[in-house]
């Protein structure tokens, strides 16, 4: 038993759950228990959107230093518009709209990798430049349109069973799948191998280009999916809908215990980190502090949690 606890404590992702639990306790202590369950429900609903892009970002970051997808916010914005426009408020077109959003994301991911591969642009700038172009397309495409989701789709993204959002349950299943893909499939192992040493991976016969392409495409596709879901949840698409996911997608990955040096990824931590970030905001909102203090405390708590959790103990 003792050994099991110690083993659990040694997991890098456990700290993000501790952090989430702590801020939740602080929040309900402040409200004297009022709204404790509602907070969890709300946190789960909002965490879903961070987790979906977080998983994509995690695979990208695991590819090694310099690999990051900065086009996710623009991607989410465009995909949300595409999905809503294709669905056109008709419940019968939901599946086609979702597919369109996925393809939109996939196309963006493909373009990202083309820029990185064909023009040899460092990923951070390639995805940044791509995001500028996507933003403009979105502004041009989404202008003056009434982009509301079909009622059925909007309800589906808000449905709950015993206070647990259905979307959260589906996302847990999805992350479980992502965990298996990461640790048990040739693709996942290849991503980690490339992150540890790209040259060694190439010499070991891994098709580095193909795996990197698949990873950027995956990240783009998940961004597209997230855009469609967000538009359903918030009952409407807009250009800025994805903006906050630039930093949060990176934050949930790294706070969750994935190494920014690449080659070491962590799926459960993404959930913990996402819940932590959402509950942190909830806590500060219940305290009723001003915007400046809220930002200040958010920053100090993030630094505090990462300091308490400690970094990579292995200095290799």
């Amino acid at each position: 038993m003792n050994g099991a606890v110690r083993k659990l404590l040694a997991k890098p992702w456990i700290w993000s759950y501790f952090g989430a639990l702590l801020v939740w306790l602080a929040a309900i202590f402040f409200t004297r228990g009022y709204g404790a369950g509602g907070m969890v429900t709300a946190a789960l609903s909002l965490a879903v959107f961070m987790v979906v892009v977080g998983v994509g970002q995690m695979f990208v970051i695991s590819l090694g230093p310099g690999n990051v997808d900065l086009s996710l916010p623009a991607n989410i914005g465009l995909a949300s518009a595409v999905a809503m426009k294709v669905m056109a408020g008709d419940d019968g077109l939901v599946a086609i709209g979702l597919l369109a959003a996925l393809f939109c994301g996939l196309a963006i991911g493909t373009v990202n990798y083309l820029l990185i591969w064909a023009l040899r642009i460092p990923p951070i700038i390639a995805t940044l430049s791509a995001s500028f172009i996507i933003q403009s397309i979105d502004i041009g495409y989404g202008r003056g349109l009434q982009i509301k989701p079909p009622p059925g789709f909007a309800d589906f993204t808000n449905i709950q069973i015993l206070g647990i959002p259905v979307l959260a349950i589906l996302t847990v299943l999805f992350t479980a799948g992502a965990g298996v893909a990461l640790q048990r499939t040739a693709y996942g192992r290849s991503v980690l191998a490339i992150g540890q040493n790209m040259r060694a991976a190439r010499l070991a016969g891994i098709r580095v280009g193909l795996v990197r392409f698949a990873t950027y495409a995956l990240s783009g596709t998940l961004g597209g999916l997230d855009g469609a879901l967000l538009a359903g949840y918030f009952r409407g698409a807009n250009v800025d809908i994805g903006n906050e996911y630039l930093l949060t997608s990176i934050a949930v990955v790294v706070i969750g215990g994935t190494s920014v040096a690449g080659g070491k990824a962590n799926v459960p931590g993404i959930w913990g980190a996402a819940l932590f970030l959402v509950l942190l905001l909830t806590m500060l909102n219940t305290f009723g502090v001003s915007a400046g203090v809220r930002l200040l405390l958010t920053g100090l708590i993030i630094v505090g949690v990462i300091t308490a959790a400690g970094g990579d103990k292995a200095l290799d």
Partner: protein
Amino acid sequence: MTAASTAAAQPAARTMGKLKAQRLLRALLPALSLALVLMAIATLNPRAISYFGFTLMLNLAIPIALATIAQMFVIAGNDLDLSIGPFVGFVGCVTATWLRDTPLVGILMLLGCIGVYAAVGALIYLRNLPSIVVTLGMSFVWQGLAILLLPKPGGRAPDWLLTTMGVKPPLVPFPILAALLIAAVAYFGLMRTSYGAILRGSGGNSVAIGRAGWSLLKAKMALFALTGLFGVLSGLALIGITTSADANIGNGYTLLSIAGVILGGGEFVGGRVSPVGAVIGALTLALAASPLLTFMQIPPDWQVAANGAILIVVLAARVLISPKGAER
């Protein structure tokens, strides 16, 4: 893993030649990018290539160049600073309020900021934390402080700062002079002094630097303090140009500074940075951002896209020159 270690396996003479050629290419790429953008501007509007034109077009390039140099120091140590933008904004708020009203308090606050940066560096080293998360947290801290200090846009730059940034030297426009000065200071400090070599080494091979008896803690703190120092200078320069401050004024600088370093030939790992390249990268970004777009008469909707496209075209020039397999 890196190009250098590939080369190290080969005979020494060839290694030297190859290294030299690579260094030359690395140094030339950013300059070529800048030349491309300048040529485009010259074709579109020949009158812009003048003393007055450069002063106008490059004015905002000074704070961008300073922020890029700031970012370059942390990148030299294998870290990344996601807080530099909000930090520049916070410095701007301090400059437009405290530094004008009670200069002594203002100066102490700015020095304190540099101290905080050094402390963040120490924390990152001692606890072996990912710099991305710590500086992400710090970005909220700076942003929060800036909003607390200046909830609404306002304040006013100190007069001495306005005079400094408004200087009109003979023949060479002030921004170009400033860029040369920034590049020269950063180049000699980081590339030509012995401690500069130690600092770069702490990013390139920290184990070797540590075994040689140098304090890695001090190196990390020095790199972060330098980032803080140049961040402060960037904030000062920015407010000297815009004359008043806003808590969100610097937010775009985080990505701009990273892009500038990379455009200038820097790399995320291995302590490989180029101060001259970084300044050129910042100038390229500043020129590509607005003057070029104005001259191309692009509708507002598509300006952001054109910005991205220009970045891609400028960087695509690499393909023509950089050797095959240059990826890590």
